């Protein structure tokens, strides 16, 4: 495919990696913000091409992962209603809520549907006037224009049986939260290319100068990421902290102006709770005053509901770049994409899922037996119930229960 294949050239990647080796004199820690980039890094083994002093940390840029558990609960509550067709991106269906996930609701007779685009949900609402169609509007700035367009179209055509359950988050406040964290190790960022395609990168200049961090807007193909790392390393070695644009074939300094105008009509900036970070001020989008009748939280009266995060899953620390998935005792054993403990193992962009799929790891048994790769299908390994307190097998010393399908 044009604009894809030429950015996957193995020879060029090798040369670029060699250039990075040549440029590095000291250890540097760089965070790639977007989950799509994390995925590409793991898939193509980019981290293994880099010199040892360069560490890539995986950032909070997976919208599914940072969606707080209470929103999942609100989604399952709404989806269980008889008059509702609940539409979502496929990633969200397996994210565990306090009691169950959306798949569970679907299995119990709820009308939960996976759609490719929010605009498909609008069509569905038009075709089913007797039903309430709710779309789970999760995402960063990349997804906001499409969701804004869905609501905009609904209002233009007088569609009343359509609403959004909004959990939109914004990247720059999250970067600031990472930088303000007392245990922050990040020295430079690869900013998310598609977020900047929409928003531009002007708002990153104050961040770069205030915290003295280089920020390189980076694309998603292997050569894009390697070039982004190279640009970061050069800045770090030269003591510069600027905003640079590697992904100039898609990103303009001011972003996509019509998309931003549409977003500012439909959405307003609100405080938002993030999994792993807690509430970050002015870090999300909610529906603007004129579009409140399309807010599913108001429509179905679930605004006031709140829930606490599960304490066993360390996804919060993974999202802040403090821990790597392999440093979690549940990783690949009690927590797998099929039976996730937390959202980072669910989403295709989640760091834990990327490690699970692509990372070359194996389990070294505590005894001195020879190294054995983990057989993921071995059902004799633990697969605890969500509700049964997944850690109790550990605490009591009893072996975890064998595989059981969900009730």
């Amino acid at each position: 495919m044009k604009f894809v294949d030429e950015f996957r050239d193995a020879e060029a990647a090798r040369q670029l990696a060699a250039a990075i080796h040549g440029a590095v004199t000291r250890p540097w820690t760089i965070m790639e913000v977007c989950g799509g980039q994390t995925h590409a890094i793991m898939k193509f083994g980019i981290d293994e091409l880099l010199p040892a002093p360069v560490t890539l940390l995986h950032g909070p840029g997976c919208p599914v992962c940072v969606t707080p558990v209470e929103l999942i609960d609100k989604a399952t509550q709404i989806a269980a209603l008889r008059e509702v067709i609940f539409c979502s991106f496929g990633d969200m269906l397996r994210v565990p809520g306090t009691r169950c996930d959306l798949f569970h609701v679907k299995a119990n007779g709820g009308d939960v549907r996976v759609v490719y685009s929010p605009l498909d949900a609008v069509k569905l609402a038009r075709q089913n006037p007797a039903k309430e169609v709710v779309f789970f509007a999760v995402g960063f700035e990349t997804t906001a224009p499409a969701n804004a367009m869905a609501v905009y179209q609904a209002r233009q055509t007088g569609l009343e049986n359509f609403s959004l359950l909004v959990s939109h988050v914004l990247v720059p406040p999250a970067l600031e939260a990472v930088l303000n964290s007392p245990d922050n190790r990040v020295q430079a960022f690869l900013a998310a290319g598609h977020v900047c395609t929409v928003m531009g990168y002007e708002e990153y200049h104050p961040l770069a100068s205030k915290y003295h961090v280089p920020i390189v807007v980076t694309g998603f193909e292997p050569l894009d990421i390697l070039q982004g790392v190279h640009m970061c390393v050069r800045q770090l070695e030269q003591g510069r902290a600027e905003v640079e644009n590697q992904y100039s074939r898609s990103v303009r300094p001011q972003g996509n102006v019509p998309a931003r105008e549409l977003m500012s009509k439909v959405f307003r900036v609100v405080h938002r709770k993030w999994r792993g970070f807690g509430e970050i001020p002015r870090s999300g989008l909610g529906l603007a005053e004129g579009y409140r009748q399309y807010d599913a939280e108001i429509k179905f009266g679930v605004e006031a509901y709140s829930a606490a995060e599960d304490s066993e899953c360390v996804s919060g620390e993974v999202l802040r770049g403090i821990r790597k998935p392999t440093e979690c005792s549940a990783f690949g054993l009690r927590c797998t994409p099929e039976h996730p403990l937390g959202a980072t193992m669910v989403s295709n962009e989640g760091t834990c899922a990327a490690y699970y799929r692509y990372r070359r790891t194996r389990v070294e048994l505590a005894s001195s037996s020879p190294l054995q790769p983990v057989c993921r299908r071995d059902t004799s390994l633990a697969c605890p119930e969500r509700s049964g307190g997944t850690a109790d097998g550990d605490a009591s010393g009893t072996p975890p229960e064998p595989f059981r399908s969900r009730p």
Partner: protein
Amino acid sequence: MAREIRGSKITQLPNYEITKFLRSWEVDSAYMCLAVPGKILSIAGADELRIGRVSFGGIVKEVNLACVPEAKIGDYVIVHVGFALSVVDEAEAQITLDYLRQIGELQALESGGGEAPDEVEKPS
């Protein structure tokens, strides 16, 4: 078995050994934040209902083009969840590729033989 594994430690492993175990999990499903370039085949409608037929390596989908008013037939657009976010700038793509080529030439010069190394060794 499970008891032993619980007290275990995960270490790195060479690529080839584990790949076969993970193969069955390599599902190519749609990523939520993934946006891909596709070529516009035709355009219909106007304003917020400006819709294009866009080909992604032969797979054609309907895409909303409302926010890329400058896009015309034959252009490549970056598409996310059925919504075009930008028109790919061919000249800028070429600049990036030129930058990569220059780095390659520079590396070839530095390595002396005019030929790129077969592999890059990771210092331990």
